[in-house]
C-alpha cells in the first residue's frame, strides 16, 4: 500500500506537459493490472506444477519443485512491487505487434503467452517460462522500428513454445542427480591434493557444456522466432537480421557531457562555476589486465555473438534480396518522448545516478524544458539524501575504466559537489 501511494504521488508529480498534448507518464500504481498479472501467473504456475508432479524420478521432482517454488516467490515479489507496467502508448503498440504475430501464425496457439513491459536498467528481453515474455522498458526505447520489436518478441515467444526454461531446469536437475556427477564429486572430495584444481576443471566442463546447450537453444529460438516473424511480416524478412545487428550496439551511449554543458546547467545555480567539480578520479595510471584468465569468455556466452546469429539465419532460411524500406515514423512518433520516459524509468527503479546523467544529457540542449528541470531536482534530492546517509554508492556508480570518459567525469562531478552547493542547485531548480 505504501509503495502504491508513493508511486501515485510520483505519477501526480510527473504528469507534466512536456510538449503540446504529451505527458511523460509511467504508471506503476495500477493495482488492477497487477492483480491481472498475478491471476494469470497463478493460472500458468498451476500448469507447471502439474508438470512437475508428473516427473517420474522422486529426487528430480523434489529438486525441480524447490527451484520452481523459489522462482515463483521471486516473480510474485516483482509483480507486487509494480515492476510490470501498463503504459498507454507502449502497451498498445506491443499488443498490436503481438496480435500481428498471432494472426500470422494461427496454428501455433499463442494465446497462452503474455507479454509484459517491465521497468529495468537493462536493455533486454527474456522468457521466464510460464508463458511470460518480458520486454524491458529501455529496450523498447532503444529500438528503431516495430519490426525490431516484433522479431525480439518472436524470439522470446519461441523460447516459450520450445519450453526452454523448464527443459533447462530439468536437465540441470537430472544432471545434478546423475550418478556420474555424484561419483566424480565424491572422488574429488576424497582427494588429498589438487582438490581445487580437479573441482575447477570438472565444474568448468559442466558450465561450458551448459553454455553450449544455451547457445543451441538460442539458435533454436532464433530459428523458430524467424518463422513466426516472417509469417507475420512476410515483406520485411530482412528486418530480423537488422534486429540482430542492432543488438550489437544497442547499449552504447552515443552522447556525452563536456565542461561547457556543466557550466550552462549549473553556473547560474551556484553563482559561478567551480572547475574543481570536474576533477574526477584519474584511472589512466592503471594498466588493466585484458581478458578473463579463468573462463574462456566465448565459451561462457549464453548467446552466440550477433554476427554468428545473422549468418545462421541467412544460411538456414536462405534470406536474400535487398533490405526493405521501412517507414519508421509511426514508431518514432510513439516513442518520441522515449528519452524522457527512460529518465523516469531509471528514477522509478531508484537508479538516480543514471536518471540524472540522462537528464543532463538532454538538459544541455533543452535548458528550459520543465520536465527535465524537475527531474534534475528530484534526482538531486535523492542524491543529497543518500550522501547524508552514506549510501550514495547504491545509487551512483564509481569511476570504472570500462565507462566512457564523459560518464566517469559525471560520476566525479556529483561527488565533488559540496553540501552547500547541492542545496543551491536544489533551491535554484525548485523554483520551477
Amino acid at each position: 500500500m505504501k509503495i502504491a501511494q508513493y508511486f501515485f504521488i510520483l505519477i501526480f508529480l510527473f504528469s507534466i506537459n512536456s510538449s503540446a498534448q504529451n505527458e511523460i507518464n509511467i504508471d506503476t500504481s495500477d493495482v488492477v493490472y497487477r492483480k491481472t498479472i498475478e491471476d494469470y501467473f497463478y493460472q500458468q504456475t498451476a500448469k507447471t506444477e502439474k508438470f512437475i508432479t508428473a516427473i517420474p524420478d522422486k529426487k528430480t521432482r523434489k529438486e525441480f519443485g524447490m527451484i520452481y517454488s523459489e522462482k515463483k516467490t521471486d516473480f510474485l515479489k516483482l509483480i507486487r512491487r509494480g515492476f510490470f507496467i501498463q503504459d498507454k502508448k507502449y502497451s498498445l503498440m506491443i499488443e498490436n505487434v503481438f496480435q500481428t504475430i498471432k494472426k500470422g501464425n494461427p496454428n501455433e496457439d499463442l494465446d497462452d503467452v503474455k507479454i509484459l513491459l517491465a521497468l529495468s536498467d537493462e536493455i533486454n528481453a527474456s522468457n521466464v517460462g510460464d508463458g511470460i515474455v518480458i520486454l524491458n522498458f529501455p529496450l523498447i526505447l532503444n529500438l528503431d522500428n516495430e519490426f525490431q520489436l516484433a522479431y525480439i518478441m518472436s524470439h522470446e515467444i519461441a523460447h516459450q513454445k520450445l519450453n526452454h526454461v523448464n527443459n533447462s531446469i530439468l536437465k540441470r536437475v537430472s544432471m545434478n542427480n546423475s550418478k556420474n556427477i555424484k561419483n566424480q564429486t565424491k572422488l574429488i572430495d576424497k582427494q588429498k591434493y589438487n582438490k581445487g584444481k580437479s573441482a575447477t576443471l570438472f565444474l568448468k566442463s559442466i558450465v561450458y557444456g551448459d553454455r553450449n546447450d544455451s547457445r543451441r537453444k538460442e539458435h533454436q529460438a532464433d530459428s523458430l522466432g524467424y518463422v513466426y516473424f516472417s509469417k507475420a511480416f512476410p515483406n520485411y524478412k530482412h528486418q530480423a537480421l537488422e534486429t540482430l545487428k542492432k543488438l550489437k550496439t544497442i547499449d552504447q551511449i552515443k552522447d556525452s557531457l563536456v565542461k561547457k554543458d556543466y557550466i550552462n546547467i549549473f553556473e547560474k545555480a551556484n553563482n559561478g562555476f567551480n572547475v574543481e567539480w570536474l576533477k574526477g578520479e584519474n584511472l589512466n595510471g592503471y594498466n588493466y589486465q585484458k581478458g578473463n584468465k579463468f573462463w574462456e569468455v566465448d565459451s561462457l556466452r549464453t548467446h552466440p555473438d550477433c554476427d554468428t546469429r545473422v549468418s545462421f539465419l541467412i544460411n538456414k532460411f536462405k534470406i536474400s534480396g535487398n533490405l526493405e524500406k521501412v517507414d519508421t515514423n509511426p514508431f518514432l512518433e510513439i516513442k518520441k518522448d522515449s528519452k524522457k520516459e527512460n529518465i523516469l524509468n531509471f528514477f522509478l527503479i531508484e537508479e538516480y545516478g543514471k536518471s540524472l546523467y540522462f537528464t543532463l544529457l538532454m538538459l544541455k540542449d533543452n535548458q528550459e524544458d520543465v520536465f527535465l528541470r524537475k527531474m534534475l531536482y528530484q534526482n538531486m534530492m535523492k542524491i543529497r539524501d543518500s550522501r547524508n546517509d552514506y549510501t550514495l554508492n547504491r545509487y551512483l556508480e564509481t569511476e570504472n575504466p570500462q565507462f566512457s570518459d564523459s560518464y566517469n567525469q559525471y560520476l566525479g562531478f556529483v561527488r565533488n559537489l559540496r553540501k552547500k552547493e547541492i542545496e543551491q542547485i536544489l533551491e535554484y531548480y525548485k523554483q520551477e
Partner: protein
Amino acid sequence: MKSKIAFIALLLCSSVFSQVTKLSTLSSNDFLGSEIIYEDNKTDIWGYFLVYSKNQKSKDLFELEYVLLDKNLNKIASKEFLQSRFSSMMSVTMPNIGYAEKKQDAIYFSMVNSQYGAYFAEAGLPWMRKIDLKTFEVSDQFLLDSMVKTVKAKKDENKIREYKNVNLLNPLGGNGFMVFDDELSSTQRTVAFFRGKAVPYKGFYFYDLDLNQKWYYPFNQSKKSKYFNIYSFVKADEDDLLFLKKGKEDYSDGFLNSLIVIDKNTGKLKYEMKLDDSKKFHHIKKIDFNENTIVVYSAFQKANKDYYFDSTEIEGFYKTVFDRTNGKEVSKDYFIWDAFKNKFAFKGQYGEIEDYGYLHFIDFKTVSNGNTIAYAEGFKPQNSTKILDAYVMEFDSKMNIIQLKKIEKTINALNAKVWGKEIEKHYAFDYIYSQNIGKDNFSFFYTDNEKTGSAGRSNPSWVLGIVTYVDGQFDTQKITLTTKNGSITPIRAKNGYVLLKEIFDDNKNSEIRLEKINL
C-alpha cells in the same frame, strides 16, 4: 533496486543444486589475506592486494592467486603462483602476506609462514616476489643471495635447507630494506628475540627492492660504551632515509632523542638533528618529511637524571621545523597547558583538568601557512581508566591556539589504570586514522559505541565519527555502523573516502560501498 528478471541465471547459482554447489565450494578459493597498497609517495591509496589459495598441490606446496584492485575496487589483474609453506611436527602454517609495496611498475610482496600474519616474524624468511604491472607476471622468489645458501629441493619446491646469518628484512616504506648486521648465529638471534633481549648491531645493510645490496651504514658505536643506540626507521623518500636515534654515545652525552638523515643513494650521514637537551626531553608524536622541511611534533617535559621520559609529566608540545637541506633548526615553537586556560581549569603544570582528566594528543597535521591541526582525546587514569571526548584544535604558526572544538563521545572504560601513551600504544583510544582530503583539508576518523538508555547498555550502537577540517572550519558527522538488520564495518579507503562493508543479518546479502566524505 533493480528488476532482476533473468531467472535463467538462477539455474547455475541456485543453492538447490547440491552437487554443483559442492563442486563450486571445492573449486572456490580460500581468502588468505589482503594489504592496502599505497602510492609510491605514500600520500594516498593506490589499490588493494588480495591473495587466495586455489589448490593444494602437495603437503607444503600451494597454488595461490593474487588479485589486484584499483582504488575504486575495480579489478586490475589476477594471476596464479606457486608458494611453499613451512611445516613441522609442531606447527602447520598457511602462507600469509608479510609485505606488499608498490614501486613504479611493480608490486613487491612477500608471503610468510605465520599463523598470525605477522610479517617477517618467527619462521619468516627473506623471500620476496615481484609482480610486473605491465605483464602481471609473478617472479620466482628471490632472496638475499649473499647471506643465504639455498638448496633446491625436489620437484617444484624451493626450500631453505641451510642458511647462515639470515637476518630479517626491515622495510623502509617502499624504498628498500634495512638488514641489521651483527655477529650472532640465527639460533642466537632467535633466542634473543624470544627472550626480548636487544641485539647489539654494528650497522645495517641497505638493499633496494630487488634485494641488491647498495651500501652499508656503520653505527660506529664505541666498544667501551655500556649502552646501545637504538635506531628506528621513520620515513623515506627517493633521496633520504630518516631514522630516530635513541640512546647515548657516552655517559656524558645526555641526549635521548635525535633524528638522523642518511642519503639513500650513497649511505652517507647527511646530518643529525638533536631534539633533547639538558633542560628538556621530548617524546616524538609525529614527523612530517616534506620537500624542504622536516617538521617534528613532540611532547616535552623537564629533563631528569634518569634519562627517562615520564608521560605523566608532560608540560606541553613542541613543533620544531628543520631545514631539510642541512638539518638546521628553522623554528621551534611550543604550547603549554596554560594555553587552554580559557577552556579548561587545570590543576598543576602537567595538564590535569579538574574533574575531568587529561588530554592526550594523537595526531598533528601541518597546514601550508604554518598552522597546525591537532586531534586529541580526553582520558581519566584510574583503576578503570576512562576514555573521554575527542578534541580538534588549530594552532597558528607559533603554536598559539586559534580554535578548539569538542566532540562529545560515549565514555568507555578500560580495566586498568593506564596513561595516554599506553592507551595509544594498545590502540585503545577511539581514534583510528586520518586522511589528507585535499589541499590543507583533513579528516580524522574515530569509532564510538553509543550506549543510550538501559537498552543501549546491552545493545550499543556503534558509530563511525568523522571530524573534518575544511576551508578553515571544523565539522563533525557520524555514520551509524549498527543497523536494524546488520552491521557496517568501515575500511580505510582512498583520500576523502571511506569504504563501508555492510553485512546483513540474514547473511544472504552483503554490500561494499565506497562513499565520499560528505563535505
